[in-house]
């Protein structure tokens, strides 16, 4: 059976499963729609959180990114897991005790202020929209790669599926589909990893495999071999990386704190019955996440080694079939700069921009060795190979020569990862509109039925907007993912932490802190990413901190401003202080 047939089979089965769950779990009250009535089992919630959290980026792009970053990839590995420790120890149990529906709910009540609630709603909306556009794009990409469906139709199919279970089932539907999606995605991620680890090192457990000796009889450790390959080709050693230490530090903090401040993650801990459950549920979530996150760096090492040994200094005509397949998708390319017919792989970009295939009457033009020709100007580096980072996970099964069904499984897994995250974000958007804006600010007397209707309309509307951005991605989508984390770190996190741990924190301090933190972070990112990208190099950054890491500084600024402004204004009212007191104890 061909990869395409297998993919249709797997995608068909998994999608029917998701739709089945949607019909079975229709929500009938707002409490069911927003937080699944607060009755989700902690283990179930942990698994759903893991699927919610691990997006198309974690599944498709992260391992590839790490394989090109080497040691520096640790910023993602630690950054996107370490935040769960903060969640379990400092946020989840208290927010569960507070017992409302959303993060803006907490901010609004704790800081007895509509302004604070509105600022929080705006942050939640910006963060969620930025994120969801990327997910829909991921859905479209997988469809077009594996099923030869147009990106447009891929996104439409994805939208229809998410619409079914998010709009009908709300949190209840999302929770149970996310459990199914977790199972699909983790299976799809692990199977190729086991195979490749066994092939390269003789040990099928990837976490152990990438610290083992090679199975080729040389007796060399895999990582030593990779470091040696890197050094020979002029790259810096794989295990040492290139980013400055302070930048690695700041990015890691921003990602960790950002994770703990993301509304679609926090809200998952409103769905369990008890404070005790909220704590353990974060633990389960991190176990489920860690399975993928400890495997990804191993896959990165395997695929990096396989790539270098397959292509470096080899004649083009000896390339395996996958090389040509990916060339034709413009994700891989070779330009024979020195005319020797061999692939030279070296540091630096091979070409300017990403490949644009040269065509005459729709036919691809080929060079002397049969390579796909492109229109891009070449750079003056020795490097002749262009590799898109995203293909490392997608092409891994082919590069390692695994059976067709494994490649199809990866496609189904990528879809599961993208859909589960999109659904969680859409729910945050719809809740922000129906609950935080309409119910809490515009029309407090609205009936539960009406509010539920608005929630569904908002979710439907959000699906359409997300789909639009999936089909017509603004050029800066990839660039602005940093914004989502930076903003969450610089806005929500300090306000929530102070709200729980500092009883005297008042409205004025918190609002000032959130606004200043938000604006500071936004303008730094906008300056380097959108307005003056040509200055986006370490010599111009403040203290050597890249825009990805600036959220950390934004968080510190937020904390300082909150505390300073808070000193000037009076303490919060007695009943707010009592509320803070009460959320600190599971029962009191």
């Amino acid at each position, binding site marked *: 059976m061909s990869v395409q047939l297998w993919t249709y089979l797997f995608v068909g089965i998994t999608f029917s499963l998701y739709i089945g769950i949607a019909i079975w779990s229709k929500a009938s009250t707002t409490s069911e729609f927003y937080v699944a009535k607060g009755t989700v089992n902690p283990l179930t919630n942990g698994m759903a959180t893991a699927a919610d959290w691990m997006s198309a980026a974690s599944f498709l792009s992260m391992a590839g990114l790490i394989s090109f970053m080497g*040691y520096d990839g640790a910023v993602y590995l*630690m950054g996107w897991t370490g935040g769960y420790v903060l969640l379990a*120890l400092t946020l989840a149990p208290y927010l569960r005790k507070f017992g409302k529906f959303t993060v803006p709910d907490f901010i609004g009540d704790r800081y007895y202020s509509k302004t604070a609630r509105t600022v929080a709603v705006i942050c939640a909306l910006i963060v969620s929209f930025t994120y969801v556009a990327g997910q829909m794009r991921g859905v479209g990409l997988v469809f077009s790669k594996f099923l030869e469906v147009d990106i447009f139709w891929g996104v439409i199919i994805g939208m229809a599926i998410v619409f079914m279970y998010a709009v009908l089932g709300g949190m209840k539907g999302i929770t149970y589909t996310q459990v199914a999606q977790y199972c699909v995605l983790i299976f799809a991620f692990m199977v190729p990893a086991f195979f490749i680890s066994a092939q390269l090192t003789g040990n099928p457990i990837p976490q152990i495999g990438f610290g083992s000796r090679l199975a080729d009889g040389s007796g060399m450790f895999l990582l030593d071999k990779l470091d040696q390959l890197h050094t020979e080709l002029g790259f810096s050693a794989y295990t040492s990386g290139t980013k400055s230490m302070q930048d690695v*530090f700041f990015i*890691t903090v921003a990602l960790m704190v950002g994770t703990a401040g993301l509304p679609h993650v926090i809200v998952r801990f409103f769905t369990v019955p008890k404070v005790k459950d909220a704590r353990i549920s974060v633990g389960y979530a*991190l176990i489920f996440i860690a399975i993928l996150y400890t495997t990804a760096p191993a896959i990165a090492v395997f695929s990096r080694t396989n790539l270098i040994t397959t292509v470096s200094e080899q004649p083009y005509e000896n390339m395996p079939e996958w090389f040509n397949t990916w060339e034709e998708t413009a994700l891989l390319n070779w330009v024979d700069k020195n005319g020797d017919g061999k692939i030279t792989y070296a540091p630096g970009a091979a070409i300017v921009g990403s490949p644009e295939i040269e065509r005459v009457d729709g036919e691809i033009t080929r060079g002397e060795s049969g390579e796909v020709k492109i229109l891009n100007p070449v750079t003056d580096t020795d490097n002749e190979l262009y590799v898109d980072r995203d293909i490392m996970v997608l092409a891994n099964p082919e590069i390692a020569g695994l059976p067709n069904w494994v490649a199809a499984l990866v496609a189904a897994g990528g879809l599961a990862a993208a859909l589960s995250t999109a659904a969680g974000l859409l729910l945050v958007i719809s809740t922000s509109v129906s609950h935080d804006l309409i119910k809490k600010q515009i029309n407090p007397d609205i009936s539960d039925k009406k509010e539920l209707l608005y929630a569904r309309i908002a979710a439907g509307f959000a699906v359409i907007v997300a789909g639009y951005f999936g089909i017509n991605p603004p050029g800066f989508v990839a660039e602005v993912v940093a914004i989502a984390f930076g903003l969450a770190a610089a806005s929500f996190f300090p306000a929530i932490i102070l709200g729980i741990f500092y009883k005297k924190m008042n409205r004025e301090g918190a609002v000032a802190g959130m606004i200043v933190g938000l604006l500071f972070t936004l303008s730094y990112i906008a300056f380097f990413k959108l307005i003056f990208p040509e200055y986006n190099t370490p010599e111009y950054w403040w203290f050597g901190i890249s825009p990805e890491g600036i959220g950390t500084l934004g968080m510190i600024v937020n904390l300082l401003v909150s505390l300073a402004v808070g000193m000037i204004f009076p303490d919060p009212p007695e009943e707010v202080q009592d509320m803070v007191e009460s959320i*600190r104890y*599971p029962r009191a």
Partner: protein
Amino acid sequence: MNKHNLKEYWAINIRYVLILVSIWFLVSFGFGILGAPVLNEIQVGGFKLGFWFAQQGSIYVFVILIFVYVYLMNKLDIRFGVQEEEVE
């Protein structure tokens, strides 16, 4: 439950959090980033130790920290009688 006891409960909770967060910081930022160049001199199996903490070890420790906190807090809840009743 009197006010004095609750204050003590909260103080112990804060102490647990501070200790566990310090370990969190030490393992990830200490071993994985700031100390990585030094730890990389030590090799365990095929792993340089700093690299291993940055890409593997810190994640394992994160999981353990959460479960230690859950265990400590469940015991503390019962000791101070603030555990939630079993409903159902």
